[in-house]
């Protein structure tokens, strides 16, 4: 009969109306500034740089200025300038570091490709999204100082991933140390066997 479809519709909306008072399925509003949705572990917004030590962020950047991310970044929003000198990284090896590292967040498309291609686990994705601003030239270009965040912060926002990365880095470091040790031992043995021959330069 004419009208039955309309009445069915009215019943559905009435159900939703009533449900909005008692059924959390039918009242899904999250009152944003007061309540916040828990961002998932994988959430990504803009990249940041990891520093090993929070007290000396610029001195302990993991980034070695290899410029892979600069090249791979699809919208080309990363700029890196290599340092002229080298300084020791966490393992004590001498490495280049970025004299300039800038990301233009007004261009960045949060695609995470920089993170994927980084061989040093130096750049990761941040979760901060409340960054509305009134001046795009000043506030949306992030330089090295504003990009650097300590490893502890990384653990805070991506606990699972950070633990995995740290484990991997530690294993690599250990392997490197083992190798160095073996090399040193071999060198020592060689030196003991043939004291006359000058040892070959140690390979890093």
């Amino acid at each position: 009969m004419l009208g039955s479809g309309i009445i069915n519709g009215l019943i559905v909306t009435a159900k939703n109306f009533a449900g909005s008072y008692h059924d959390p399925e039918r009242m899904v509003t999250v009152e944003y500034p007061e309540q916040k949705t828990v961002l998932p572990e994988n959430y990504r917004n803009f990249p940041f740089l990891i520093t090993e030590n929070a007290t000396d962020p610029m001195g302990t950047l993991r980034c070695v200025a290899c410029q892979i991310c600069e090249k791979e970044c699809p919208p080309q929003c990363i700029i890196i300038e290599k340092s002229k000198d080298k300084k020791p990284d966490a393992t004590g090896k001498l490495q280049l570091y970025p004299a300039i590292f800038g990301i233009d967040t007004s261009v960045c498309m949060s695609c995470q490709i920089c993170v994927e291609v980084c061989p040093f686990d130096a750049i990761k994705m941040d979760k901060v999204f409340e960054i509305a601003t009134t001046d795009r030239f000043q506030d949306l270009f992030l330089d090295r100082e504003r990009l650097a965040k300590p490893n502890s912060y990384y653990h805070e926002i991506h606990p699972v991933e950070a633990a995995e990365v740290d484990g991997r880095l530690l294993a690599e470091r250990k392997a490197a140390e083992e190798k160095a040790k073996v090399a040193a031992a071999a060198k020592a043995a060689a030196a003991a066997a043939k004291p006359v021959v000058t040892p070959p330069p140690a390979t890093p």
Partner: protein
Amino acid sequence: MSDPVTSPTPFPAAGNISDAEREDLRRHGILMTSLEELHNWGRSNSIWPLQFGLACCAIEMIAAATARFDIARFGAEIFRPSPRQADLMIVSGTVTKKMAPQVIRLWNQMPEPKYCIAMGACAISGGPFKQGYNVLKGIDRFIPVDIYIPGCPPRPEALLNGLIQLQKQIKAEQLTGPNAARFTRPEEPSEFPIPAYGAHDLVPTKNDALWAPPTPEAKA
């Protein structure tokens, strides 16, 4: 962007007293209000955006209006399709050169006081598509933008955050005095020239009176 020079007023009017002072008076039971405050309260709680989506960010703008995020809580769910009734233009998405004249025309059709939010990387700077030949590198080349919300696309919460910032900005606006809001000053333009379609690009490519990126010297 246009921060007028702050000159000290010798006799601060009621509207010019600071928040702290007002809080202090409040604690003593004195309600200090003024026409200005009432006006700003009304405007900041009734921001009707223009129903106008350009690209990907428009979906997140719609999402901000849906049940989960509910922009209605701020009194801003009345998306007016006609610019005549809108207070806020959310430029949500890539502004192409073909679209730019229309966007500026819409802005010109909006009555004062009006505000503009550039939502997402594309609206701010052209974003990932800035290398494209038909993409305008930022809507602020032609119209003044109050709030920039970076992200690609920004979460609906980020849009709400931008809206809250805009509300704060409106609440801090003054109607008179040297720091008066833009829309009260007759010398500030309300309409902006609309570029023409040229043979290779828009003519002109930017509004020089409005858009001045910092030069490296100025920065250093």
